[in-house]
């Protein structure tokens, strides 16, 4: 049988590993992933997309679906956590948020469209840096984390705010510093079942697996933090 998983694109690799691990135990089960931005997935599910399980990169979209009655409220829980880091070329000497005003171009994800962006905005605002950087047009808003990382890697920007898991995949760039966790809401990946999913026993089964230590190990292997 198929388990239809709508998952944020940043989880695609982890999901593939989870699928492989789960199939060893349940060879008859097949994961059918639909990978896109959380917002896209949420809207698809609202529009009636077939999905059993939704893994969002963001609380907001999960809440949105709960209010739209497309996610069963009691099933929502946190699958994994992530943290925000500043990624840049190795030759950069930036050490903390305080060094940012000296930079020319800083990439972050668009706060409107991407959770990473929203967290970054919160942190920068809390640190009192946002208005300055914004006014001097230092901020380049990327569509998503991938694009922000790509700017950093190619040196188009002096640095980019991305998730830790994404930063670990960088080749030319390295993590310059971690953004203090108290400057923004926690970065959570909530998972929840749709009403269709909640009705299916095999989906419940997989949902349980996601909470298992084995699944936790796999996620940790990709750099995620466990709740």
């Amino acid at each position, binding site marked *: 049988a198929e388990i239809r998983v709508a998952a944020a694109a940043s989880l695609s690799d982890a999901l593939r590993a989870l699928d492989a691990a789960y199939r060893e135990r349940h060879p008859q089960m097949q994961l059918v992933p639909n990978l896109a931005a959380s917002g896209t997935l949420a809207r698809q599910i609202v529009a009636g*997309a077939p999905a059993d399980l939704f893994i969002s990169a963001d609380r907001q979209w999960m809440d949105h679906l709960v209010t739209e009655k497309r996610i069963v409220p009691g099933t929502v829980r946190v699958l994994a956590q992530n943290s925000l880091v500043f990624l840049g070329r190795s030759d950069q000497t930036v050490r903390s948020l305080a060094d940012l005003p000296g930079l020319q171009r800083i990439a972050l994800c668009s706060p409107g469209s991407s959770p990473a962006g929203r967290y970054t905005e919160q942190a920068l605002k809390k640190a009192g840096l946002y208005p300055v950087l914004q006014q001097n047009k230092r901020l380049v808003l990327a569509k998503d984390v991938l694009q922000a990382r790509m700017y950093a890697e190619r040196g188009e920007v002096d640095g980019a705010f991305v998730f830790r898991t994404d930063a670990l995949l960088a080749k030319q760039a390295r993590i310059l510093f971690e953004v203090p966790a108290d400057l923004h809401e926690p970065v959570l990946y909530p998972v929840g079942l749709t009403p269709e999913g909640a009705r299916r026993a095999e989906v419940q089964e997989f949902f349980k697996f996601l909470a298992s230590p084995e699944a936790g190990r796999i996620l940790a292997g990709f750099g995620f933090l466990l709740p």
Partner: protein
Amino acid sequence: MFDLTATDYQAVALSVRVALTATLLSLPGGFLAGALLSFGRFRGRALLEGLLNLPLVLPPVVVGYLLLLLLGSNGLLGGLLAKTGLRIVFTWWAAVAASLVVGFPLLVRAVRIGLEEIDPRLLQAARTLGASRRDTLISIVLPLSGRALLAGAGLMFARSLGEFGATIVLAGNIPGLTQTIPLAIFDYINTPGGEGRAMTLCLLSVALSLAALLGNEALLGKWAKRSRS
């Protein structure tokens, strides 16, 4: 570099199927719409024109959302279709629908340019020989706009191969089912070390459309320039 997986091949096959289907499906409508806009004199012509061009002006993602609103199982048309047991969203037909809507304005415009260069005296001659308006459209205008239709079809096919934004929203990104080449590329870019494969897929896509375009050109060449008498 050419170590493509089974799903990659599926993506390629799906892309070709989707682009071809979208192109073929759109030809009759494209010709009619072009003819309507070129020769028709009716109220709301500007509106129709605007509506047709909408998909060109809007970001494809938005087009995808609007289509989703329309065709989704809770949507206006989707609800009706669902009653007949038809389901478009998240099937490969959704990819076809996305390509169709996004590429249609390109086709129509190509057709119009061709139509407007047809010597009206040929149409006059046909009318005096007893052909009605519609008959003239089919027996004279259609064959004479063959080149333009072909050129538009080439455009449409290429555009369909590259269509991403509307497709990912309307069809979802489901490997083997709705994952066309651009979506697969998107996936690889999201994967560490996937760049090589992404590149391979890009090249494949380019090769495909080049082949299509060259075939198109060859056909165009054969099709003598013949809208003149």
